[in-house]
Each structure stands twice: as C-alpha cells, then as structure tokens.
C-alpha cells in the first residue's frame, strides 16, 4: 500500500513537471497548445541524439536543450507566437494541432518509427527504504518538479517580469494601457513554457523511450493536470499532478488498469463543471480572455 502511494506520488511529480510548461502557455496565456506532446517528443529526440552521438547524458543535455528551445522561440518562432496569441482558441487548437502533425511526421521521416531509449547507469538504479522501492530517475523527476514549482512560483510572484506576466494574464487591455509590452510578455512566457517542457522531455528519456507518436498521451494528461490544479497556479499544477498520479495508481490498483483513464477523465469533467477555476486557481480567472 505505502509502495502504491509512493509510486503514485512519484508519477504525480513526473506529470507535474511535464505540465508546468503547459501551465504557462495555456494556464497563463490561454493559448490552447495541442502541440505540447510534440514539444515533449522533439526534446526527447534531441536528448536521445545528444546521447547517441556525443554520449552526453540526458541530465546534462537537458540543461543545454532548454535554453536553446527558449532562444528558438524568442527569435525564430516569435512571429508565429504573436500570430497564435491573436487567433481564437479554436484557431489555436488547429494551428498547434497542425504543427503537431508536421512535427510528428517529420520525426517519422527523419528517425523512423523505431522505439529509442537510452541505457544510463542510473536509469536502472533503485533506492530501497525498507519495503518501499523506487527508481532513482523517477525520484529525480519528482524532486525537480518540486524545485521548479518553488522557483517558478517565486519568479512569477517577485520578479518584475513575473509581475508583468501576471498583470497581462489578469487583463491584457489594462496591462497594455499600463505600458506593458504585452506582445513581448506573450513571446517570453511562451518561450519559457516551451523551455520548461523541453527540459522535462529530456528528463523523461531515461524513464521512457521516444517514438514519433509518444506525445499525445502526455499532452492529454498535461491539460487535465493544468485545469485540475487551476489555470496559472503553479502550486496547483504540482498538486494536480499528484492527484492524477495517485488517481492513476489507486484506481489502476483497486478498480482496473483499463479503467484508470476513465476515472481521471470523469474527475476532469467534474472539476471543470464544479470548479472551472481549478482547485487552486482564483475564481473567475477561467473567464479571462475567453468568451
């Protein structure tokens, strides 16, 4: 039983980490990013090739890939983000969905559909606390999710950029009137979210394996976690991750593994209806920028 809880919590940390970036992009910017899964997929491939060709450990390459992703979105992809921010949410769904299709099949063309994974020293390491077992790699994911939560939380709360981001989230028009360059904020936040996602992707590699269509299942979970925890609420995302992680572990154990998705989809709809702002989002925020 305790083992079950631990596994659930660790899984939750993993989910939280992959959702953190989406929380900035969807939760804060209200950009419905259906390519989130593909962002993860791409970064996993980057990490994989870094390992394959240069023997760079995923844990190290993650620290390279994330900044690169950030730069990419700040510069090359900037006009695209601006365009995205101005389209309706349906437009966003399909622009990002289209990008998803393209990325997925580019990966297929370039790398074939083979399953690729790395075999690092630690990816098999176990830590045992008496009865309870857990894998080092997952533990790392878990701890990093905590670190990111705290860091991001204080960044958004204290730093100037963080404040402007929150202001823009609250009311774009007013933020504009207050002389905030909302466009810059959008691009920055999006790039930040993408970078965090890329980081998470790199960390996933030692635990999972990468293939072109791996993204979808992660993306769906990320959306659920973000909404469950509350849009724009960083701690919320962490808790949301835990809830989904535990739900999955427990319902899988006590009901049936084939039912666990059913269970968390139901929870998802219930939360949406009963508390659309999510568990930790401030009430009403879900209406912002949404008709």
């Amino acid at each position: 039983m305790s083992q079950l809880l631990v596994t659930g919590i660790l899984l939750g940390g993993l989910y939280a980490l992959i959702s953190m970036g989406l929380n900035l992009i969807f939760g804060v910017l209200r950009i419905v990013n259906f390519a989130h899964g593909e962002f993860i997929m791409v970064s996993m491939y980057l990490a994989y090739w870094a390992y394959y060709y240069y023997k760079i450990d995923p844990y190290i390459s993650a620290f390279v890939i994330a900044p690169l992703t950030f730069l990419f979105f700040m510069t090359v992809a900037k006009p695209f983000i601006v365009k995205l921010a101005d389209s309706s949410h349906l437009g966003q769904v399909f622009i990002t969905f289209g990008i998803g299709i393209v990325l997925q099949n580019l990966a297929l063309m370039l790398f074939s559909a083979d399953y690729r994974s790395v075999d690092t020293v630690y990816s098999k390491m176990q830590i045992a606390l008496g009865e309870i077992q857990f894998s080092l790699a997952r533990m790392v994911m878990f701890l990093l999710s905590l670190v990111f939560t705290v860091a991001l939380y204080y960044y958004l709360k204290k730093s100037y950029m963080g404040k402007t981001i929150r202001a823009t989230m609250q009311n774009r028009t007013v933020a504009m009137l207050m002389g905030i360059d909302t466009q810059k904020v959008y691009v920055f936040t999006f790039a930040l979210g993408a970078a965090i996602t890329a980081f998470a992707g790199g960390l996933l590699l030692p635990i999972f394996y990468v293939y072109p269509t791996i993204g979808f299942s992660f993306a769906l979970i990320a959306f659920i976690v973000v909404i469950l925890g509350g849009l724009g609420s960083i701690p919320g995302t962490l808790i949301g991750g835990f809830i989904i992680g535990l739900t999955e572990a427990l319902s899988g154990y006590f009901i049936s593994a084939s039912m666990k998705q059913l269970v968390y989809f139901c929870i998802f709809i219930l939360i949406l209806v009963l508390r659309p702002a999510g568990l930790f989002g401030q009430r009403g925020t879900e209406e912002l920028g949404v008709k």
Partner: protein
Amino acid sequence: MTMQRSLKREFSLVRIVLLVLPMLLALIIPNAFFRDIVILLMLWSTAASAWNLLGGFAGQLSIGHTAFFGIGAYTSTLLYINFSVSPWIGMFAGALLAALIGVVLGSITFPLKGPFFSLSTLAFAEIVRIISISWSDLTKGSRGIVIKYTPGFDKFIFDSPVAYILIAWVFMIAVYCVAVYFNNSRLGFYLMAYRESEDAARALGINTVTVRLKAVAISAGLTAMLGTFYAQYILFIDPESVFIVDNSLQIVLLSLVGGIGTTIGPIIGGYIMVPLGQFLRSALGDAVPGFHLVIYGLCMLLIIMYLPGGLVSLLQRRSFGGSRLKRPGRRRDEHGAVGNS
C-alpha cells in the same frame, strides 16, 4: 424582402452547382476510386455541417463529435448484427440515443465556455471510447465488428457505389437545408444571439438553456446518422476507427477551413481538404513514410493562419468567422461581468 433575399443567397446558382457537382461527376465518371473519394467527401462535409449547427451557429466548439458518430455507428450495427434490425431503423435509433446523450452532456457542461467546453467534449469522447473498448460483451471491444457483405436495400448494403453516392448526397443536401433553416429561423437567430453574448440573449427573452440543448440534440443526432452510413459503407467498425479523436478534429477542421457558422462553409471545407489529403496520400504514398502528412499539415496551417474566416470569407461579407477568429479577450469590455458590478 430580406428573407427572400437571404434564401436566394442560400440557393444561388453557384451554390446549387457546388452542391450538385461532385454527385453528378461521380455518377458520370464510372471510376470506383473517384466515386469512393466523392462519397467520403460528402460524408465528411455533411458531418462538418452537422457539427457546424452546434459549433458554428451556437458557438459551442465541440471537439468530441466522434463520440456521436461512433454511437450512431455502433447502435445501428449492434441492432443489425444481434437482432437483424434494418440499419435504416437502427439509424434513427442511433440518432435518438446520440441526441439524448448529447442533451445530458450539454446540461452537465452548460456553464463551460470556450476552451473549457471544448476540452470537456474531448474528455467525453475519450470516456465513450474507453467504455466501447472495455464493455466488450456488448461491443466486441477492440476486435471490432465485421458487417457481412450481403447486398440488399433493407440491409443498407449495396453492390453498386451509385446507391451510396445518392444516399450520401441526400444526407448532404438534407443537412445543408437544416443549416439554411438555422440561418433563417427563430431558433437559428436565438443560437447566434446566444453565441455572441449570453447576457444580451437572456435580456432579450431567450431561454439560452433550451435553445442550446436543441442545437446539441440536432447536431448530435445528425452526426450519429452519418456514423450509421459510415458503418454500412465500410462494413467494419472498431473503437479505433469510429471513436478516435482524429475524427472529431477532422470534422471541425473542415468547418474551419470552409468557414464556421456559415451554411455552405463546412461543405466547401470538405470539398477542399478531403481530396487534398487523399491526393497527397496516393501521390506521395511511395515516398518516405510521413511525408504526405507533413505536407497536409502545412496546407492546413497556411489556410487557418492566413484565412481565419475560412474560404467563405472570400465569398461573403457576412461571415463572422473573421470576427470570431479574433481573440475575444481583445474586446474584454464586451465580455466582462454584467454591468459594472
């Protein structure tokens, strides 16, 4: 006056040609593959306009319509396989069931707006898919159901594609007429009012709950009937083909490309995207795996990013698609809470 004028527009020469052309071509050209494409084209165009009744007119952007599609397919097929009920009857049974489920879903998710409603419909579709897999005593689960090829009108199975062409066409015209009705009726106007501003609509005496549920029921029911058609045409259904999220997205994509909330838009969307996808698939089928989808994705991106009102916005001044596809948050003042409270 205005009325007749709008009706004239709905059945202008160009449109009549558009609506009849593929059917005629398919009848004239005895080319089974071309006919096959035309049938699928009409199928998905119709599905798109059925979606558009809810997504376009009422502004309820569902991305879970594949659930209704699948419910239709499974209801008629199961009735046919187990109790040899003619799919013609099963079709309406499915429509009814889908409409009911739609109403239930609609009333649960009533408070949800924008992306939240969309995501809830996505989740709903996934739930239905999972159930269809795990309730295998009823649905045969993932193994799917093969419908035995035994031609016969009552069985809704035909040896000549001509029959399918005509049926698909009748569906398309029927749904188009429903869309025209929406565009020129009390219900339609009330839905559009609701779409534009729920408060204004209520202040004008519109019971937004009931009009919305009506839209859901009609849209879901029609989509389900198309599910039956699909099943009877392909003669094989399984969860992965009728409940898969790609269907939902395809349906919305067509409307988006053609022009949301317009009568002809979704159909035009189907005319463009279905052949395009098929052309790329067969032209690049020999190329590197995935290539044709990359191209398809790019085309889709271009159209959506640079023609937010859909192709119809070229045709009509009055396709609010353009105004819709601007981010509402931009005009916060009009969507704020009631009054200045």
